[in-house]
């Protein structure tokens, strides 16, 4: 490169950086800085009179009381937080598995056999994105009421003798609501991936004598592992922070999740405990994300070989 071009290049470099600057500055102030504020609040104290949190900005003032409280709740005595964490993991695991069992066949059918209905089917899969999550929960509150349609149909069909209180602190209702709420977010990435699978691979498998199911089991399914994993992560992350689904479909402490505890403590008088719970949740989720990154990297390396 001739020397004369260098300053021009550098000037352009500065131009591109200056274009990115407002957005980067925005994220620094309203996304990165808030994380430090969470940490400072979780390591701070509460003003005994005003009940206001006193964040500990300086590491010298750090006070581990809130973390002590969280760890005591996780591992000692009645383990209130331990039960909540375990319950959250179980609910999320069951919901993710059920979502996958629903999402995969639907995405597979629309991607591979949609035919001339594909446009319409896709519109049906995308529709939930334009309907607020809370409205979708409201629809189920209507249906699951004591005199709602679910009870009426079940009693009419003779499956239930009497209407059941579906909204009275049932794990099944909460898990059902989470599956209903999050399944569309899993279908779309699966669809996008299955739609791109090279059909000649399947034809090759069939030519070599594989049945439809063998071709699926030995070609399509292994190929779609990364997409399955991505879909699971996409819906598991918001599920871990969910508190509105249990609040709306149960409202009972028996179905309280990590999100409910965070919400309670942040709006209560022990704000540092809420902040500490957020930090613990973030650590747990970053371990899961790191695992996801490692696994997808390994799968990508293997498929490239």
């Amino acid at each position, binding site marked *: 490169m001739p020397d004369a071009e260098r300053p021009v290049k550098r000037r352009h470099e500065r131009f591109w950086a200056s274009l990115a600057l407002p957005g*980067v500055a925005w994220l620094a102030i309203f996304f990165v800085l808030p994380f430090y*504020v969470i940490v400072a609040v979780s390591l701070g104290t509460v003003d005994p009179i005003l009940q206001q949190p006193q*964040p500990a900005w300086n590491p010298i003032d750090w006070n581990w009381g809130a973390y002590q409280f969280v760890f005591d709740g996780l591992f000692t005595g009645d383990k209130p937080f331990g039960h909540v964490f375990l319950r959250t993991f179980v609910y999320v695991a069951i919901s993710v598995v059920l979502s996958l069992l629903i999402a995969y066949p639907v995405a597979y059918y629309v991607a591979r056999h949609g035919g001339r209905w594909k446009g319409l089917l896709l519109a049906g899969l995308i529709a939930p994105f334009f309907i607020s999550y809370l409205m979708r929960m*409201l629809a189920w509150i*209507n249906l699951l009421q004591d005199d709602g349609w679910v009870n009426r149909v079940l009693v009419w069909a003779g499956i239930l003798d009497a209407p059941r209180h579906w909204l009275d602190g049932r794990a099944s209702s909460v898990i059902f609501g989470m599956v*209903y709420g999050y399944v569309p977010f899993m279908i779309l990435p699966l669809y996008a991936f299955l739609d791109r699978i090279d059909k000649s691979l399947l034809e090759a498998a069939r030519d070599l004598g594989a049945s439809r*199911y063998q071709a699926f089991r030995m070609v399509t399914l292994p190929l779609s592992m990364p997409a399955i994993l991505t879909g699971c992560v996409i819906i598991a992350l918001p599920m871990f922070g969910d508190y509105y689904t249990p609040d709306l479909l149960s409202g009972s402490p028996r179905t309280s999740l990590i999100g409910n505890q965070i919400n309670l403590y942040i709006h209560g008088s022990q704000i540092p405990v809420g902040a500490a719970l957020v930090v613990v949740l973030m650590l747990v*989720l970053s371990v899961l994300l790191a695992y996801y990154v490692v696994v997808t990297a390994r799968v990508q390396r293997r498929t490239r070989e």
Partner: protein
Amino acid sequence: MSTATATATSQPAPSVLARLRRWFANPWGKPRFLPLFTALYLVWSIVPILIAIRFSFNAGRSRSTSQGWSLRWYWSDPDLSVWNDPDLRSALFQSLRLAAIAVLITVPLGVALALGLTRWRGRGAGTSRFVSLVPLVTPEIVMGVALFLVFVNLLTFIPLGTTAQAIGHITFSLSFVLIIVRARLVSIGPEYEEAAQDLGASPRQAIRMALLPMLTPAIVASAIIVFAISMDDFVVSAFLSSGSTTDTVPVRIYSTGRTAPTPALNALASVTLALTLVIAAVAFVVWRIVRARRGAGGSTLQDFAQIDAGPS
């Protein structure tokens, strides 16, 4: 499959069960289970919404028994309808206000960010790219609590309410604009602005005259997405709300969904849904027109560029 037929013909009288199994497993027939399953899924996913909308037109107070049709819960009821209940009406306007602010600020900010991060290679570029994608994997409750604590403890000159909520909406939707516009920028490649600059354009002119016209479809698409996720947002709006005057539609549904059961809430949700769909549809039509006008030229140019660029 030839083996399957062979075994089938060698068996003299297959039982009904076996015949059913073979019909189901026939490798050459169309799959039979999947269309049924997909149809059931679509019914399950959409019919509850239609039922909720139907009860918003109920003449009575029930949300589960048909009591005739009326617009009572939309505007005829003097106290409880969406139009006459100040809480419900303000929720609707607050949702629309926040979505409009979010689109107007996030889209330009995100487009500039995408342009900058895609072409900028200097020190700090990698970190900036990483930081701007993290919001996508951050659960909303983390972002909601973080911003709540920031506005209460550090940036106290920004009060909770519309300003704080708008900042929250912009923060979590910025990354969506970034990935949509960036994907388009990567597929366009750097040739156009380089060509423009070779012809004497400054980078600023190259962006305005070469890149922005080609990016228009991606910009319109990201505006639709920002609008939709802002209307849908619950957690950030709830944490940053200063009281019932700044509650959005989802926050109102959350706070009264179980306690004050009148169909007015269904009516509020239905109006919001209708508005979202209409606005998204209008934007989609604009997008189609823009793409038909610009995209055709753009893609031919792009084909040329790919031929020109050769196997590099």
